[in-house]
């Protein structure tokens, strides 16, 4: 059974021929395709969807529009799903919140219901913290009670691609105002995107009526829909929820499992309203619905809201519902009109004609029922008459008023004011290129919404500013030609809050807040709505105050105004205000936000050769580099280094930054960017590069090759390449030197070939190039052909052997690698390189320096030009040199040969003081001892001076400063 449904004419969304089986709280049920979870449950007579946050009260749907946490359920793999928004799927396993089985059944913690007096707002601030450590005991318990959905730790992320879209005019909301706005905007020539959250265009026209004839709304809907469909330049995005409006009209919308990011020249917000609860005792009982929810149940899902209902109204809406019930054959016990003298209304007349009992000046003091509404206790809001009466009914439709659904306008920076007469928050100032139309502006009747929508759509298409001047029905409409305010009629009850001395009169369903919680918070001194929110948690639940803020504000305004508070000054609602509305409009899943979670990864041209050789890859910025080739890290690195030192090794340098600078001022430019002297650098020679920031901190190093008088080829470290390039462009924008700066990093591949056999290998591959000691000495640079490929050869010695960096076009990288491998060069990875450079005492920027290291501290003064007119950071380096360094980088060895090797970043200590740290340390296989670099006190940096290293274990290791290089101090091998 898919439950009892109403007959034909009802159930616009459901497919009666497509039953879907699902489970709720362990019970097998059946719904129909097109149902939302909540409507399918309602069709099965299941109205209680959850147990509440604090008191564990049974709760059901109210708005049928996802505006209260009552309807939040878990489905497999996804916590916190709104049962009144999520479409039912076959086989769904739905779990209610805070309830093991069906929430309508008795719940052990429902006892909390009777503890309200012991749980005033913020009760947890007063308890659970004495004696010391008490909170550690209580917290786990409270955490388990709090919270809603359960995260499924077995679920896995699926890619949710994002959609980028743009349009002239985006219209948010496909109701009367939105459709009219879209039609007008399109007619004005704008490419228009109409976005609607539900699966149906037409908004209220789908379920509400304004005239006794239900068909009138349907006819209007059909007309508008046809126009929208006919307009060539209207695109529809639905069902889609716009969750945010960000700077320069950047909209986020979620549709069909994807986030759409939409840039719109103009945005028309026609997002309608949120129907508001009336506050009375037990107003949270399942069976108490917003009138529109009851209408939607019938019209969209063919579900009867109950057998015999009552309707509480302050406007025509309640009478519309009464007529719908009559049409559907659902009993109506009475329409209770909160107004003392309801104005004349064709709908009310029609309801009376249909034999429905109407009681004016009648309100609800309280609802009666266990897990569902059974009866209402009535009273007369206007004083006398009525007495205490009880009305039996199994549902109540509430039409006490609504609140503009203006979240997007708030995000955009619109200003609102509370109009006491309309009892509504109305936008009064809009941000640039943002427009508002329809009931979000207070235009509650169809004609007004239509007219305003059309006018605003036209303005948006023409880029004309919308000026909002509110014109209530009693005042004269604005005459301004671009004004787009509607003539609106009173819809909202000014104060649908009927506090009950015994409480359980809920203002905020999400947070289980009763009227006394709000006023008590005020009395507790939290006399700013923002403070009150934080103390009471008003509006902090999943619905973010959409059903609670306005009533809380009204409640407080009257409470303070009546002198109940010792402020006694009185206050109007606008002075109380509401808290700031923050995105997203509806909670966005992390999967949708993340999208495909695209993380770019850069691979060198030799990447697959590394993998074939069993390399363990390591992350270096966006690049992947081989750390070592197979086996265990330390042993592998030692073996790779040994081969390099005894035969020939090669390492992939393609990730290094490679920047070419050319032009008449190239030398001057390089000389300003780096600390050393480059003006007189000979053509065909390489020179060390050291870069400092303006405040004198080492930021990078590399090698400068002078290829011609006006041409330099520079290298930068892997991680800093982009930053160095940007800094160069930036400085030259200011200097205006005649140079071009080209980033060749990804265009060039590089290999460092080093070792006793390196020269021999190179000679084989570079026929005709003079590689002799005289022809190609240390620090020489040559352009040559290697295995037929155009290459730049740099004679450098980072690892301390005869070595040559070979730079070739990226497309040749793999061939170069293969050619070298064929001649016997053995790959080594970053780990082996780190070891070998340490043996030579060379620093690695970022490892042996940190965010505050100056050339003085790094013992790099030798690389700072003495008589230069200028380089970036020069004055700061000078000032810091004058000050004297607090620490200095020094080579060290261990006093005891067999002491454990310190780890990088172990501290250097001196008694009770931290005086430095180890930056690099390794047991050198070639030297048979531990060598390292460390920051020590400047007075301790002379070779032979002892100092203490604190190992991770806390043990002290005695070290002795030593001269670098440790390996081949005469540099004989690299010459």
């Amino acid at each position, binding site marked *: 059974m898919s439950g009892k449904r109403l007959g034909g004419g009802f159930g616009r969304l459901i497919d009666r021929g497509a039953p879907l089986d699902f489970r709720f709280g362990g019970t097998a049920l059946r719904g129909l395709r097109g149902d939302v979870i909540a409507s399918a449950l309602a069709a099965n007579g299941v109205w209680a969807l959850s147990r509440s946050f604090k008191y564990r009260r049974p709760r059901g749907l109210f708005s049928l529009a996802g505006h209260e946490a009552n309807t939040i359920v878990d489905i497999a793999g996804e916590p916190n799903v709104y049962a009144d928004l999520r479409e039912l799927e076959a086989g769904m396993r739905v779990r209610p919140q805070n309830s093991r089985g069906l929430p309508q059944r008795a719940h052990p913690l429902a006892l909390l219901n009777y503890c309200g007096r012991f749980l005033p707002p913020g009760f947890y601030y007063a308890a659970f913290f004495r004696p010391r450590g008490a909170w550690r005991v209580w917290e786990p318990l409270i955490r388990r009670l709090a919270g809603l959905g359960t995260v499924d730790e077995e679920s896995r992320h699926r890619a949710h691609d994002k959609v980028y879209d743009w349009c002239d005019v985006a219209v948010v909301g496909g109701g009367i105002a939105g459709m009219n706005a879209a039609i007008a905007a399109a007619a004005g020539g704008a490419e228009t995107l109409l976005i609607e959250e539900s699966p149906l265009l037409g908004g209220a026209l789908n379920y509400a009526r304004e005239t006794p004839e239900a068909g009138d709304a349907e006819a209007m809907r059909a007309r508008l829909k046809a126009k929208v469909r006919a307009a060539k330049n209207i695109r529809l995005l639905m069902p889609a929820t716009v969750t945010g409006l*960000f*700077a*320069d009209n*950047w909209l986020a919308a979620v549709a069909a499992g994807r986030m759409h*990011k939409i*840039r719109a020249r103009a945005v028309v917000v026609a997002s309608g309203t949120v129907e508001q609860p009336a506050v009375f005792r037990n107003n949270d009982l399942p069976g108490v619905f917003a009138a529109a929810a009851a209408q939607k149940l019938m019209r969209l899902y063919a579900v009867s809201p109950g057998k015999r209902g009552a309707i509480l109204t302050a406007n025509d809406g309640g009478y519309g519902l009464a007529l719908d019930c009559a049409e559907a054959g659902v009993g109506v016990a009475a329409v209770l009109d909160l107004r003392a003298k309801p104005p004349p209304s064709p709908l009310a007349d029609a309801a009376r004609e249909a034999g429905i009992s109407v009681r004016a000046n009648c309100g609800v003091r309280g609802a009666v029922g266990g897990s569902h509404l059974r009866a209402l206790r009535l009273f007369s809001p206007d004083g006398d008459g009525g007495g205490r009466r009880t009305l039996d009914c199994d549902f109540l439709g509430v039409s006490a008023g609504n609140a503009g659904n203006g979240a997007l306008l708030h995000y955009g920076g619109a200003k609102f004011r509370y109009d006491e007469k309309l009892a509504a928050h109305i936008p009064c100032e809009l941000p640039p290129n943002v427009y508002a139309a329809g009931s979000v502006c207070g235009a509650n009747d169809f004609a007004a919404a239509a007219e305003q929508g059309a006018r605003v759509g036209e303005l948006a298409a023409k880029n004309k500013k919308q000026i909002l001047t509110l014109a209530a029905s009693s005042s004269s409409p604005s005459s301004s030609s671009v004004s787009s305010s509607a003539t609106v009629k009173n819809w909202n009850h000014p104060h649908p809050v009927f506090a009950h001395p015994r409480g359980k009169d809920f203002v905020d369903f999400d947070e289980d807040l009763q009227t006394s919680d709000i006023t008590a918070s005020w009395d507790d001194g939290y006399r700013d709505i923002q403070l009150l929110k934080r103390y009471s948690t008003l509006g902090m639940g999943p619905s973010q105050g959409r059903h609670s803020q306005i009533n809380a504000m009204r409640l407080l305004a009257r409470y303070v105004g009546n002198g109940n508070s010792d402020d006694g000054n009185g206050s109007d609602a606008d002075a109380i205000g509401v808290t700031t509305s923050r995105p997203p409009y509806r909670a966005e899943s992390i999967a949708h936000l993340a999208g495909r979670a695209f993380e770019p990864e850069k691979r060198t041209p030799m990447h697959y050769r590394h993998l074939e050789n069993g390399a363990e890859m390591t992350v270096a910025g966006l690049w992947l580099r081989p750390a070592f080739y197979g086996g265990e890290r330390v042993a592998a690195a030692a073996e790779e280094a040994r081969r390099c030192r005894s035969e020939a090794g090669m390492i992939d340098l393609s990730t290094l930054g490679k920047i070419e600078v050319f032009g008449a001022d190239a030398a001057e430019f390089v000389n300003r960017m780096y600390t050393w002297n480059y003006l007189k650098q000979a053509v065909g020679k390489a020179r060390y590069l050291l870069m400092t*920031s*303006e*405040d004198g901190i080492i930021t990078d190093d590399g090698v400068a090759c002078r290829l011609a008088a006006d041409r330099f080829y520079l290298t930068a470290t892997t991680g800093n390449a982009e*930053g160095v*390039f*940007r800094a160069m*462009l*930036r400085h030259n*924008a*200011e200097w*205006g030197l005649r140079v071009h700066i080209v*980033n060749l990093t990804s265009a060039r591949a590089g290999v460092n070939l080093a070792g006793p056999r390196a020269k021999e290998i190179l000679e084989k591959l570079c026929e005709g190039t003079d590689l002799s000691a005289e022809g190609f000495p240390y620090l020489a640079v040559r352009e040559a052909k290697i295995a037929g490929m155009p290459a730049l050869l740099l004679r450098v010695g980072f690892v301390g052997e005869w070595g040559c960096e070979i730079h070739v076009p990226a497309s040749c990288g793999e061939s170069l690698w293969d050619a070298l491998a064929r001649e016997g060069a053995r790959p080594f990875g970053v780990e082996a390189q780190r070891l070998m450079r340490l043996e030579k005492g060379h620093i690695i920027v970022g490892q042996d320096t940190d*965010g505050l290291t100056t050339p003085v501290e790094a013992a790099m003064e030798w690389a700072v030009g003495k008589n230069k*007119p*200028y380089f970036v950071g020069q*004055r*700061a380096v000078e*000032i810091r040199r*004058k000050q004297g360094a607090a620490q200095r980088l020094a080579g060290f060895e261990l006093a005891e040969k067999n002491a454990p090797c310190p780890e990088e970043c172990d501290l250097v200590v001196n008694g009770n003081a931290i005086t430095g740290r180890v930056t690099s340390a390794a047991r050198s296989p070639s030297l048979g001892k531990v060598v390292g670099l460390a920051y020590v006190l400047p007075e301790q940096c002379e070779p032979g001076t002892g100092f203490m290293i604190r190992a991770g274990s806390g043990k002290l290791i005695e070290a002795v400063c030593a001269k670098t290089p440790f390996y081949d101090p005469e540099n004989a091998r690299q010459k």
Partner: protein
Amino acid sequence: MKIIHTREHGARNIAEFVYGGVVLREPAADAGDAEWADYLFIRENKAAPCWELWLHSPSGMWYAVLRDAGSDEFLRVVLAREFFAGGVLTDDDAGLSSSSSSSQESTPSQS
């Protein structure tokens, strides 16, 4: 997401740009240490229009941008090269701070 309009590239998302610090005049080479400290570390940091440098990353072009740090409005966007070469500043813009800047590209990642 904000849009930055440049003469060279038209309207582009701000995601294509990298902030590069406020524009400051470097002190003279013979300026005292205190003046250099001021240039390097002290910032006016007003909620008001201020000239800044922004890099359009895909094109490698640096822009001088007059932006209001109170409203986040981009009031003027010109090529940094032209800005520094002169002829871009109007009298109104002359209120450039005499103190200074380095880019603050790295920001801490945790609270």
